[in-house]
């Protein structure tokens, strides 16, 4: 069965700091990879996704993620965070065939101090 592990449960940074959130997955086959974000009081929304091709994926709001197949990792990065990036971030995977049910990690709560 697929599983997703996010190592950081709560990350606290100051504005303008660089961000990297870890995500590792366990699955023997080819997967699609996602990062979702949930801002306070809002719905889960897609930040970025990887299907194939360039392993460096750029998403909204200056976020990017790099797929490293050999490490089963899909870490999320942002060079300079803003207070408005305060949110919960979820990494997810799905199989490339069939129903696109998402398997989520437990989430990382990011707090940005102004």
């Amino acid at each position: 069965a697929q599983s997703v592990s996010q190592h950081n449960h709560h990350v606290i940074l100051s504005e303008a700091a660089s961000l990297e959130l870890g995500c590792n997955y366990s699955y023997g086959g080819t997967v699609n990879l996602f990062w979702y974000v949930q801002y306070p009081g809002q719905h889960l929304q897609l930040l970025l996704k990887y299907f194939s091709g360039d392993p460096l994926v750029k998403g909204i709001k200056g976020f990017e993620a790099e797929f490293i197949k050999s490490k089963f990792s899909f870490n999320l990065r942002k060079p300079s965070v803003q207070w408005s990036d305060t949110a919960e971030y979820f990494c997810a995977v799905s199989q490339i065939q069939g129903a696109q049910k998402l398997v989520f990690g437990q989430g990382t709560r990011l707090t940005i101090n102004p």
Partner: protein
Amino acid sequence: GAGVSQTPSNKVTEKGKYVELRCDPISGHTALYWYRQSLGQGPEFLIYFQGTGAADDSGLPNDRFFAVRPEGSVSTLKIQRTERGDSAVYLCASSLMAAAVDTQYFGPGTRLTVL
């Protein structure tokens, strides 16, 4: 346009009671997913509909849980004989098709509390 909507936003019930949670997907979306999110965890898949049929219900925890989508649009998640462990936020998502390229759009969720 309108996003995915879910009603009610909050539901408090007593152990043993029956509840129904409703999901209105984005118009024209054929794929609909239900997830459950417990406190401090990521969402967990429950069931997936393609059109009117439940194409994958492997995530339903037991036979107390059932979901329908009779006309291929609105879906209802039904929980019989609720237990305290059923307390969670129930999320609905829809996508245009069930292809990987189709983004799943999530609703605000229904927070279910079983006393």
